[in-house]
C-alpha cells in the first residue's frame, strides 16, 4: 500500500494538517502536499480512468508531465476539469472528483472498451465511421461526442477573476532549479535586469532531492542562500508558481502565474497572465524522465523512478512497501537508494543493460540491493494495483524466469531535456546519441529582432545533468557568454525502449506509450505498417502525444518505436514540433480583465446616461452604443419605431447624432486634397455652405459618405459615417504622409469634441426659435448652410442638413455641454411634443427618401454610379481616389446591378437579404439571380413595405414586376419603382 512515512518530507509542514475530499471521501494531508502526494498518503493509488479503454490509472509522475492523475477540481462556479493532481497544491477544504468513468471509479462500464481493445485499433474512428456518409452526422457523431472528453465542463459562470500584466527585463530565466538560480545570479551580476520564474511553489528543482553538492554545500543550503542573495538584488524579480508557457517572436513571452489557485476565494485574482517582452531568455527548464514500454506499464503503482523518490523525499510518502526498480541507466539507482534509506524494500533492480558498473549501481549493491542486469519486466501483475512483476531476459521474447511480488514499480527510460521553450519560436533540436535525447542545436537557435539568439538552454535542459557542470555552464549562459562544451555525464544510458526486445504482439498490445490517449506500442507499429511514415502523420493517426500532457512522457519512446518499425533511426524520423503553451493555460487567464462590462470598450455619447434613464434599447454601431429606439412602458420595439417616425414627420423628433465622424482639414492645399479624396469638388464650396460627398477606395468602390462644410478660406469640416471616423481619418493621414507629403494640409479628428443633435420635423425651426439666440430662418440659414451662434445660451454650430427629408438642423455643441443642451431641447420641445428617436427610425426615414446608407447599399463591390450617384462625381476632375479603378471595363459598363426602389404588390415587407430571382439555374443547380434587396422596411408613413435594392439594369426597368425569394413562402412579387418613396419634390425640407 502507499502511505505516509513517519518522518521526513522536505516540503511538508506536519504541524499544519489539511483536510480534503476525493470522490466524497474525507482525507487528510499536510500543508506543502500536492494533491497527488496527499492521495498516495491516503493509499488512493487509483485516481482515474484512461480516455479510450477506461483502464484504471494511478499517479505516474510528480510534476507537469503527469498524464493520468487528472481530476475535476472544485465545485460549481469553481469547478475545473483535467487538473493535474501532481501540480495541484493541497489546501484545506479542497474537493476533487475523479474523471472519465461511469458509474464509479472502481466500477466503470466504459472499461468494456478495454476488453474490445482488439477491435479498437489505431485509426479505428477513421476506418469505421466513414460509411455510410449520412450516418456520421446522425448516428456516429452523437455517440462519440457523448463518450468524448475528459472531465466535466463547468456549467456555472467562473467565480474567479483573472488579470494580465506586462513585464520587461533584459534576461528572463525560466526555471528555478540550481541552473536557473545560478544563471539569474550571473546575469544580475553582469548588470542585467532579471526576471526568474519557477512553475513550482518552491525553489531548487531536483537537486535537493537528488542530494547534489554545490561548492561543498548541500543543494538545499545552496538554494536557500542563492535565493536570499537574489531577493536582495533590486534588478531581480523572483516569481514562484509561474510557468513560462510560451516564447514568441521578438522576445514576447507569456507566463502564467497561479496567484491564488491554492487559496481560492481569498479575494486575489486566481491567475495572472504575464505578457513579457524580454531581451533574451535562459531556459533552465530541466528534464523529464521517460517511461519504459513493458506489458502492464500502466497499472496503478507503476511510476517514474524520479517521481517515486520525489514522493519519498519531498512529501514523506511511500508509493509502495516493495518497489521493483527497472531501468536502462544509472540514475534510477538513486530511487532504490532513497527507498532503502527510508526503510522500504527494494526486492530487485532490473537493469536492461548487460552491465552496470557506475558509481550508483556499485552503491546500490553495497547497500545490499539485488541488481539483475540484462533483465527486463515481462509483464506487470495486477488490475487496479500492482501485485508483482514477472522477469525475463531483455534480449529474449519474454519467457518468464521469475515472479516477484511487489506493490510498486519504479521505471526509468532516461531523461529528456525540456527543450520546449527553445523550440517554440523556431530553435532546432538535435539528437544526442550519448544522452539518447534531443538537445538544443546551439548553431540554430531561435532569433530575436536583431538577429541574435533569443533562447539559450542551461542545465539539464541543455543536456548537462551533473550539478557541478550545470552551475559552471549556467554562470556563462546567465552572463551571456557562450559556454564551453562540458563533459557529459550520461548515466550510462543505453537506448532500450521496449522490453523485452523480442516481445510478441500479445505483450506489445499491453505496452502503453501515451497513457492518457491509450496509445500502445502495437498501435504505432500498426500505423507504420499502414504507411504512416511521417511522425506528424503517425501522431495524428494514433493520437500519440495529443493528450493534455502533449506527449511529455510518450514522445521519445513513441519515436523510438516508430523508428524501429520503419527500420531507421530516431533523428531520421525527427520529432514533432513543440508549440506553446508548455502546460495548459486556463482560458480565464487568456481573457484577463476582458469580461463582463469591460469585455470590450463601449463608446458612449455625452447623452448616454440620459438615454439609459429614458429606457433606450441600444444597438452596437462599431464600438458605439446608440439608441435603436426608445420604447415606452409596454410598447414593442416595432411600435416604438413607428411612433418615433410618425412623431418626427408630423411634429418633432430629436436624434443623438454625436457618433457622426467630424474631421477638420486645414491648410493651403486642403481644397486640392479634398478634391482628391472625394469624387465631387470640395474646393469650390463657398464658406458657410455644406455639400454631400462620396469617398471611394482606389479600386473605385464606395467607402464612405457625408456632408462637408467649408469653415473658412483654408478649413473644411468633413462628416463621416458613425463607424467610419477613425478609418477615414487614418485614410486621410495615409495619403498625406505617404503620397502627398509635400502638401500643406493638417487634419484633426474632432468626432468626440462635439455632441451633435439632429432636430427634425415640421416644428424644428420653432424649437430653435424657442431656444433663442440666433437667426435660423429660411433666409438666414438656408438648406445646406451652416452658422455659428448660441441657442439657449449654449455656443453651437448649426448645420441645416437633412437625412430624413424633413426640415432639419444638426446642432453641434461641446461634448461637456451635450447633456445640458439635449435636456434644454426637450424642455423647450414639450410644446411640440418632441420625442427622441433612435437609429431604426433614422434608417426608416432615410429609406423612405431613397437615401443610401454605407454598409446597406454598399458592400465593398458597389461603385457610386451603381447607386444613381453620378451627380456627386465630378466629370471635370482629372483625378480622384478611385477614378482609375472605376475606369476598369467591368465597372464602366452600364450592364450592372443598379439602385432602384421596390414595392411589393401585396404591401408586405421583403425579407432582409432576399434576391431577385431570374430564369434558369446556374452550373451548381442554383436559381439564377438578377438583383438583391439592400434595405427593406415597413414604412409607417406609407403604411406598407418599401425596399431599396440593386437590380440588373434597374433604372431602365421601372414599372416591371420582379420576384424575390423568401426562406419559407415561395417568392414575393414587387414592382420596380423610383427609390424615393416620400416627398419626391423635397418640399418638406425646403421650407
Amino acid at each position, binding site marked *: 500500500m502507499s502511505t505516509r512515512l513517519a518522518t521526513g518530507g522536505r516540503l511538508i509542514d506536519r504541524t499544519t494538517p489539511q483536510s480534503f475530499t476525493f470522490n466524497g471521501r474525507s482525507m487528510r494531508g499536510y500543508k506543502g502536499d500536492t494533491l497527488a502526494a496527499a492521495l498516495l498518503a491516503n493509499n488512493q493509488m487509483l485516481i482515474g480512468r484512461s480516455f479510450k479503454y477506461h483502464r484504471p490509472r494511478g499517479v505516474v509522475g510528480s510534476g507537469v508531465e503527469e498524464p493520468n492523475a487528472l481530476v475535476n477540481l472544485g465545485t460549481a462556479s469553481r469547478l475545473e476539469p483535467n487538473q493535474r493532481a501532481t501540480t495541484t497544491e493541497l489546501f484545506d477544504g479542497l474537493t476533487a472528483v475523479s474523471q472519465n468513468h461511469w458509474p464509479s471509479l472502481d466500477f466503470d462500464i466504459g472499461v468494456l472498451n478495454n476488453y474490445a481493445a482488439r477491435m479498437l485499433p489505431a485509426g479505428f474512428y477513421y476506418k469505421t465511421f466513414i460509411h455510410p456518409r449520412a450516418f456520421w452526422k446522425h448516428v456516429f457523431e452523437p455517440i462519440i461526442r457523448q463518450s468524448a472528453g475528459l472531465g466535466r465542463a463547468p456549467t456555472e459562470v467562473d467565480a474567479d477573476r483573472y488579470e494580465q500584466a506586462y513585464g520587461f527585463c533584459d534576461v528572463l530565466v525560466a526555471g528555478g532549479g540550481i541552473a536557473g538560480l545560478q544563471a539569474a545570479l550571473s546575469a544580475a551580476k553582469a548588470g542585467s535586469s532579471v526576471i526568474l520564474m519557477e512553475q513550482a511553489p518552491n525553489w531548487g528543482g531536483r537537486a535537493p532531492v537528488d542530494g547534489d553538492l554545490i561548492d561543498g554545500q548541500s543543494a538545499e543550503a545552496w538554494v536557500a542562500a542563492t535565493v536570499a542573495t537574489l531577493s536582495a538584488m533590486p534588478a531581480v524579480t523572483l516569481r514562484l508558481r509561474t510557468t513560462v508557457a510560451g516564447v514568441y517572436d521578438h522576445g514576447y513571452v507569456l507566463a502564467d502565474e497561479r496567484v491564488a489557485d491554492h487559496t481560492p476565494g481569498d479575494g486575489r485574482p486566481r491567475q495572472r497572465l504575464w505578457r513579457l517582452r524580454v531581451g533574451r531568455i535562459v531556459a533552465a527548464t530541466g528534464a523529464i524522465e521517460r517511461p519504459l514500454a513493458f506489458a502492464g506499464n500502466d497499472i496503478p503503482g507503476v511510476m517514474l523512478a524520479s517521481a517515486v523518490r520525489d514522493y519519498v523525499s519531498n512529501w514523506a510518502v511511500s508509493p509502495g512497501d516493495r518497489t521493483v526498480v527497472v531501468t536502462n541507466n544509472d540514475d534510477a539507482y538513486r530511487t532504490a537508494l532513497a527507498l532503502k534509506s527510508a526503510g522500504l524494500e527494494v526486492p530487485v533492480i532490473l537493469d536492461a543493460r548487460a552491465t552496470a558498473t557506475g558509481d550508483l549501481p556499485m552503491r546500490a549493491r553495497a547497500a545490499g540491493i539485488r541488481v539483475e542486469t540484462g533483465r527486463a519486466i515481462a509483464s506487470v501483475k495486477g488490475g487496479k494495483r500492482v501485485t508483482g512483476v514477472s522477469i525475463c531476459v531483455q534480449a529474449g521474447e519474454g519467457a518468464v524466469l521469475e515472479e516477484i511480488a511487489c506493490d510498486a514499480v519504479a521505471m526509468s527510460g532516461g531523461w529528456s531535456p525540456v527543450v520546449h521553450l527553445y523550440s517554440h519560436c*523556431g530553435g532546432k533540436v538535435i539528437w544526442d546519441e550519448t544522452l539518447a535525447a534531443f538537445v538544443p542545436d546551439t548553431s540554430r537557435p531561435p532569433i530575436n*529582432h536583431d538577429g541574435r539568439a533569443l533562447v539559450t538552454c542551461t542545465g539539464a535542459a541543455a543536456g548537462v545533468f551533473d550539478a557541478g557542470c550545470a552551475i559552471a555552464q549556467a554562470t556563462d549562459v546567465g552572463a551571456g557568454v557562450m559556454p564551453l562544451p562540458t563533459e557529459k555525464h550520461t548515466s550510462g544510458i543505453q537506448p532500450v525502449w521496449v522490453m523485452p526486445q523480442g516481445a510478441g504482439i500479445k505483450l506489445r498490445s499491453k505496452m502503453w506509450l501515451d497513457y492518457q490517449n491509450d496509445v500502445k506500442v502495437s498501435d504505432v507499429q500498426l500505423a507504420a505498417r499502414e504507411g504512416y511514415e511521417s511522425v506528424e502523420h503517425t501522431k495524428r493517426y494514433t493520437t500519440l502525444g495529443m493528450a493534455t500532457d502533449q506527449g511529455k512522457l510518450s514522445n521519445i519512446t513513441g519515436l523510438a518505436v516508430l523508428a524501429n518499425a520503419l527500420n531507421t533511426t530516431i533523428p531520421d524520423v525527427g520529432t514533432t514540433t513543440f508549440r506553446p503553451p508548455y502546460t495548459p493555460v486556463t482560458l480565464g487567464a487568456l481573457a484577463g480583465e476582458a469580461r463582463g462590462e469591460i469585455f470590450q470598450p463601449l463608446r458612449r455619447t455625452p447623452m448616454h446616461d440620459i438615454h439609459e434613464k429614458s429606457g433606450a434599447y441600444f444597438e452596437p454601431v462599431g464600438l458605439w452604443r446608440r439608441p435603436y429606439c426608445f420604447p415606452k412602458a409596454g410598447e414593442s420595439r416595432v411600435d416604438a419605431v413607428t411612433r418615433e417616425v410618425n412623431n418626427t414627420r408630423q411634429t418633432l423628433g430629436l436624434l443623438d447624432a454625436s457618433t457622426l465622424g467630424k474631421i477638420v482639414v486645414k491648410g493651403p492645399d486642403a481644397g486640392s486634397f479634398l478634391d482628391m479624396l472625394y469624387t465631387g469638388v470640395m474646393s469650390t464650396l463657398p464658406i458657410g455652405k455644406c455639400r454631400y460627398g462620396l469617398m471611394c477606395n482606389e479600386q473605385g468602390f464606395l467607402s464612405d459618405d457625408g456632408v462637408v462644410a467649408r469653415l473658412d478660406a483654408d478649413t473644411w469640416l468633413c462628416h463621416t459615417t458613425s463607424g467610419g471616423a477613425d478609418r477615414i481619418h487614418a485614410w486621410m*493621414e495615409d495619403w498625406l504622409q505617404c503620397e502627398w507629403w509635400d502638401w500643406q494640409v493638417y487634419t484633426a479628428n474632432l468626432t468626440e469634441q462635439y455632441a451633435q443633435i439632429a432636430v427634425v420635423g415640421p416644428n424644428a425651426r420653432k424649437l430653435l426659435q424657442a431656444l433663442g439666440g440666433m437667426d435660423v430662418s429660411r433666409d438666414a440659414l438656408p438648406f445646406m448652410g451652416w452658422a455659428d451662434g448660441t441657442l439657449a445660451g449654449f455656443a453651437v454650430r448649426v448645420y441645416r442638413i437633412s437625412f430624413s427629408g424633413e426640415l432639419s438642423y444638426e446642432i453641434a455643441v461641446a461634448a461637456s455641454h451635450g447633456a445640458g443642451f439635449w435636456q434644454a431641447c426637450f424642455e423647450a420641445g414639450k410644446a411640440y411634443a418632441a420625442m427622441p428617436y433612435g437609429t431604426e427610425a433614422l434608417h426608416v426615414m432615410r429609406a423612405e427618401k431613397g437615401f443610401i446608407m454605407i454598409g446597406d447599399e454598399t458592400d465593398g463591390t458597389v461603385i457610386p454610379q451603381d447607386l444613381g450617384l453620378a451627380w456627386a462625381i465630378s466629370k471635370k476632375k482629372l483625378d480622384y481616389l478611385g477614378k482609375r479603378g472605376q475606369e476598369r471595363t467591368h465597372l464602366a459598363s452600364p450592364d450592372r446591378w443598379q439602385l432602384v426602389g421596390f414595392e411589393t404588390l401585396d404591401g408586405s415587407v421583403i425579407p432582409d437579404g432576399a434576391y431577385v430571382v431570374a430564369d434558369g439555374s446556374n452550373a451548381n443547380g442554383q436559381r439564377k439571380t438578377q438583383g438583391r434587396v439592400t434595405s427593406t422596411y415597413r414604412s409607417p408613413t406609407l403604411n406598407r413595405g418599401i425596399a431599396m435594392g440593386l437590380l440588373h439594369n434597374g433604372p431602365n426597368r421601372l414599372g416591371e414586376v420582379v420576384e424575390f425569394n423568401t426562406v419559407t413562402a415561395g417568392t414575393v412579387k414587387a414592382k420596380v419603382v423610383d427609390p424615393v418613396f416620400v416627398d419626391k419634390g423635397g418640399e418638406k425640407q425646403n421650407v
Partner: protein
Amino acid sequence: MLTLTCPYCHILACETELAPGYEAHLKRYGPGSSDEDFEAYMFARKNPKGVHFERWRHAYGCGKWFLAARCTATLEVFGTYPAQVSAPPPDIIAKIKARRPNWEPGQ
C-alpha cells in the same frame, strides 16, 4: 508579436501599438494609366521569402506611418525609416547587406 522602432518616437513599439499597411514603395497609377500598371499598383504584391519593405503606422503612438525593412522568414528587422521616400535609403540598404551580403535592392 513583433516589435518595431518608430523612427519618430524612437520607441521599440509592440505590434499591438502598431497598425500594418502592407508593402511599401508602391507607385500609384491614376487615370490614364495602362491596365498592366494599374494592376501592378493595385494587386501585384511581391510577398518574398526574405528581405521585405513594409508600411507600418504607430497607430497607438504618434500616428505616423513609417517603413520597415525586415526578413519575412526570420522576422529580423534591419531598420525602420520615415515614409516620405520612394525607395529605401542608403543606410537601410547598408544595414540589410551587412546581414544579407547576397541580397540586392530590387530583388
